[in-house]
């Protein structure tokens, strides 16, 4: 039972990165119709940037939590204006391939600059150690990651569903023609939304920095898990991305705890079951893509 609780927290913490990054993927897909293959590379860049800022400027974790997403936001906007926007009118596969090429470039650039061994990053002061509840010991940092990412997801959901900006973005996503007819400059919103999605991936990277190995290839497996998550949750669905993100985090943690070596396979088994039972994903609309 104690072990079970520990796996649960571990799973929710891992689920936190997945949920944040998958949310970014879902928002980008919703607003631009782009499946961003470079999302794993952006996540890696977030972690690497945090480590480099600490090393060069002495910027601590809390500052990175704010600065890195802003940098990634700007970077995302540059990428959108420079590359992604030219292919928005074409088949969705072209931007999928473009961002795939981009991720190859980013990974090898980082590899050349910082090598293949992992960059150091400590758990921030105040979040080290274990919280003890009776006989259960839970790493403080994992609990923090879970609560923090849940809070960010809730804020994003609130902004999207309850504010004017969110309404415009959703209208631009779901009914671009009608939104245009009502005087909304839809294309002006597309670029910042891409930047925002990239910033979420970067944020997930910063959160991962203290307890994952920071290497150029840390996003390579991550992006495939993200794809599995959006297939499970339903690609068009923001809620689906978040729920499936936490779900996959839990499955992975229980798998590591109980199933041992073949734990990663469980995620794909889950994906296969969802495709069999609900091809559009748990929260997906029937005909989506």
């Amino acid at each position, binding site marked *: 039972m104690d072990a079970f609780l520990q796996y649960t927290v571990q799973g929710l913490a891992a689920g936190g990165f997945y949920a944040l990054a998958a949310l970014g993927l879902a928002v980008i897909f919703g607003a631009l119709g782009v499946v961003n293959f470079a999302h794993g590379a952006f996540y890696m860049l977030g972690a690497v940037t945090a480590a480099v800022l600490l090393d060069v400027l002495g910027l601590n974790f809390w500052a990175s939590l704010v600065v890195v997403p802003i940098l990634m936001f700007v970077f995302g906007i540059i990428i959108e204006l420079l590359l992604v926007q030219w292919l928005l009118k074409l088949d969705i596969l072209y931007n999928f391939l473009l961002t795939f090429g981009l991720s190859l470039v980013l990974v090898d*650039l980082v590899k050349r600059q910082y090598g293949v061994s992992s960059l150091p990053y400590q758990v921030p002061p105040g979040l080290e150690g274990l919280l003890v509840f009776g006989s259960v010991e839970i790493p403080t940092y994992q609990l923090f990651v879970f609560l923090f990412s849940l809070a960010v997801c809730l804020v994003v959901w609130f902004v999207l569903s309850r504010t004017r900006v969110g309404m415009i973005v959703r209208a631009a996503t779901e009914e671009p023609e009608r939104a245009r007819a009502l005087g909304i400059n839809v294309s002006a919103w597309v670029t910042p939304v891409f930047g925002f999605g990239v910033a979420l991936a970067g944020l997930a990277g910063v959160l991962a920095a203290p307890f994952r190995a920071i290497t150029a290839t840390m996003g390579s497996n991550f992006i495939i898990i993200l794809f599995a998550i959006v297939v499970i949750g339903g*690609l068009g669905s923001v809620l689906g991305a978040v729920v499936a993100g936490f779900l996959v985090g839990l499955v992975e943690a229980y798998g590591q705890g109980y199933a041992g070596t*073949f734990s*990663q396979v469980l995620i*794909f088994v889950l994906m*296969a079951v969802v*495709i069999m039972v609900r091809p559009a994903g748990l929260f997906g609309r029937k005909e989506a*893509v």
Partner: protein
Amino acid sequence: MSTDLETPLPTKFDVADFDPKAKRSRDIRRIALGLVALVAVLGLPWWVYPPIAVDIAAWALFAISIDLLLGFVGLLSFGHAAFWGVSAYSAGLIAQSFGVPFPVAIIGGAIAAMIIAVPIGYLAVRRSGIYFAMVTLAFAQMIWFVANQWKDVTGGENGLQGVPKSFFGIELIETEAFYFYYVAVILIVLGAWLAWRIVNSPFGRVLVAIRDNPARTRALGYDVERYKLIAFVLSAGIAGIAGGVFAISHGFVSLQELDWTTSGKVVLMTVLGGMGTIWGGPVGAAVIVLLEDRLATSGFDGIGIITGSIFILCVLLFRRGIWGTAKSLIDKGTAAYTKRRGSQD
């Protein structure tokens, strides 16, 4: 999903079938193309280092298997490394355990790839478009995990070492890459011929119909999912032949063969060569293999920067690829020529 991939459609009613003059010009072009292909296939190990020639041939067939799905069914498989890799491991294991002539091991590997492709394809064809790419990618990664963990069989991170090239005890072929090439290339050409037969058959016409309008094809009474699945499994078999040749030629199999970057690399070759052309893939494969070889020997350690940039530029500016661009130029040229000839008559 509407597919507006900029692929030249295989013309359903070719003028050349009715107009004898056009037919003659088409025949001349086909014969010329055939001769060029023959010279390329036979001459390759004279021009490039023979082991590289085998690599080019294997990747060329691998790219053809991708194009069979992408260009003619409209499905982008981003998980074909699973079939290339499963066949590589299976062919390697068969060659090691039974000591059979290597073509037998390769065919065994291709069959293993097709067997693996049935469940993956069954699940993946339920989704089209971008979902298909993500689902195939995810399942291929699952195979990678299994291979990584199943160390007794695959050797895990050490890979499968010491795969023999048995060929009826003919030492020249077993040890000299130059002669090995000429036996291996027969399998490659067979695979390419199979792809060409599939595309130019009634079955292939149904595939193109599914690509262009799945709902209508279904309404005409075709079982769309079944056709897609059969095409997927055939494509996996062709990828399997390629993977088997690659494994036997190198004499060892590593986890890299199952890695998703391998899936990405073959898609790059297909896109660079030209989607929907079948013969574009081999051109793209030759360019990429030679480029990577050149970069590796020059000691440059950031191949992804170059290949990734090629990918980006190709998708942004050069979507027809090398073959597609060349073909449209030739078509324009011959059209202008026939028109001039026509006005003189």
